[in-house]
């Protein structure tokens, strides 16, 4: 899998390169600024771009804007954005482009290599990866209708919002796929959401219900 990295902090950039090449990924380019990043995407046509939110010149949301631009010009590109802190507005901006092949994670998740690689693969395959902290924030905003769900159902909903499929959810919660399936049916019924068996549509529906994404 070919990857382009945009991260302005030199040590972290090198760390990411070290980790990803060690895992057998092909890191085509690792750059520090938005413009070279867009150039590298055009040149190397990577499968995934890993982008830091804060980059020069103003260190605010250059990374989000560069990711959105790259996604528009290369719709098949998957983008995984790394953020120093949870900012729902960033996730909202990013997911305005749709949920396919989009990820938004806190930087420290990279340390949990298994989960990080899982998210990277999911995004590369056209799926979604949303940071658990972002999902938790979305949950607090819609507390009332979510109170109708059982605790286990809320866990399942959160993992769906993170972008996990049935298998992934079953693994995390250590239950059978059949049980996950039953929980999901209940959740959709309680929240009046249209059922769908396709994971990507389901993630989009859940995120839309929680207030981000289209």
């Amino acid at each position, binding site marked *: 899998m070919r990857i382009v990295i945009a991260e302005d*902090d030199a*040590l*972290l950039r*090198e*760390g*990411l390169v*070290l*980790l990803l090449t*060690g*895992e057998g990924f092909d890191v085509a380019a690792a750059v520090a600024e938005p413009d070279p990043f867009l150039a590298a995407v055009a040149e190397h046509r990577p499968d995934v771009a890993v982008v830091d939110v*804060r980059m020069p010149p103003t*260190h605010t949301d250059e990374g989000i804007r560069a990711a959105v631009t790259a996604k528009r010009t290369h719709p098949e590109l998957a983008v995984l954005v790394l953020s*120093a*802190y949870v900012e729902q507005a960033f996730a909202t901006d990013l997911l305005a482009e749709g949920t396919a092949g989009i990820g938004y994670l806190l*930087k*420290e998740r*990279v*340390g*949990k*290599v298994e989960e990080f690689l899982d998210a990277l693969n999911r995004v590369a395959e056209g799926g979604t990866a949303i940071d658990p902290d972002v999902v938790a924030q979305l949950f607090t905003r819609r507390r009332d209708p979510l109170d109708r769900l059982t605790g286990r159902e809320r866990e399942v909903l959160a993992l769906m919002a993170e972008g996990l499929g049935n298998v992934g959810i079953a693994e995390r919660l250590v239950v059978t796929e059949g049980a996950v399936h039953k929980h999901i049916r209940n959740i959709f019924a309680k929240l009046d959401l249209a059922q769908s068996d396709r994971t990507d549509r389901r993630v989009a529906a859940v995120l839309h219900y929680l207030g981000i994404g289209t």
Partner: protein
Amino acid sequence: MVRATFASLERLAGGLGTAFMAFFTLICWIFVAVACLFGVGLLLVSPMVAMTRGVAERERRRLRRAGLEVMTPYTVIPLPQGWRAGIRAARADLATPRDLRWLGVHATAGLICGLLGVFMPLAALREITYPLWWQALPPDLRAANFNIPVTTWPAAIVLSLVGLAAMVVLILLIPRLDRLQASYALRLLTPHPSIDLSERVARLTATRADALRAHAAELRRIERSLHDGAQNRLVAVVVTVAAAKRALNRDPARAVPALDRAQEAAEQALAELRGVVRGILPPILADRGLDGALGSLAAGCPVPCALTIGELGHLPLSVETTAYFTVAEALTNIAKHSGARRAEVEVGLAGPSLRVLVRDDGMGGARTDAGSGLTGIRHRVEAHDGTLTLTSPEGGPTVIEVELPCA
């Protein structure tokens, strides 16, 4: 009582200084007034108002040092360019006629007060000590004040007693002269009664807004340096340690460079954190107090720096921090830009305020506009209702004076 008299005497001597200036300014005004009859004087009115303000401001600072609350009342500082705009602005300012009235009183009555206050004790001292040295005088010069001849021992003793009596009267009189001098200044140099409160409210609002802005900017700076600095380094540690762990299983040789990176990143994170903490509250200030912290700043300055620390009393921490950062910034500028060969720092209580003065013999041209480190210091100082005065003509020397109210 004698101590109070000495304090009054000191103030009268200071007042005598401004009274001489007021006298000189008054003479200038008279010339300008005459010149106005021919029209050309109009060009000089605006500079004369500025000069009057200069003398009045000096007097205000003197009174503030004596512990009296005298606010600067001007609405437009400095006066606009151009003689016509200058006159218009001066006329619109309620403080202008009050300044002029004060100038008239201080140049006459104030001058007399000062002269009496300073020279009468000297005259009395001369008479008290007369018996000690009158015989050393040539016979035709043996006289008391007002040229009254005193040529015998009994007369000399009597004269000494008269001098002593005069001195006692003076000890009672001098504080009154001092109060007299301050009373009309307090009446005329403060803002016009009608604008005092609104002016003060506006000023307080502005400084509070400044304080909030400075506070918010400070928080943003801390947030930025934590997120983009220390946190990034720690994430790099986490990532490289994770990479090393996974490399250990496959190819242990590749784990070593990753661990080296991780250690480097962890050390940088520590350095970043130290930097952030130092920016919030310098640990040396917490450990060794303001004088110790300033001593270490002066010792660390590459330009030889003479440090004079007066009485500090018990200062609020926020005042100490601001004073510390002022000196730190000033010395950094001196080391980086001034080309100075020596610097002086003076810190001490002056009345109810902490006064910080940094002087160098460098090339001057320092500014407090946007972008300079002194801008941040000015905001910090003004947020404390303090004042920062920077004089730095091209060619030097540069003097930064900061007054921070301690109450």
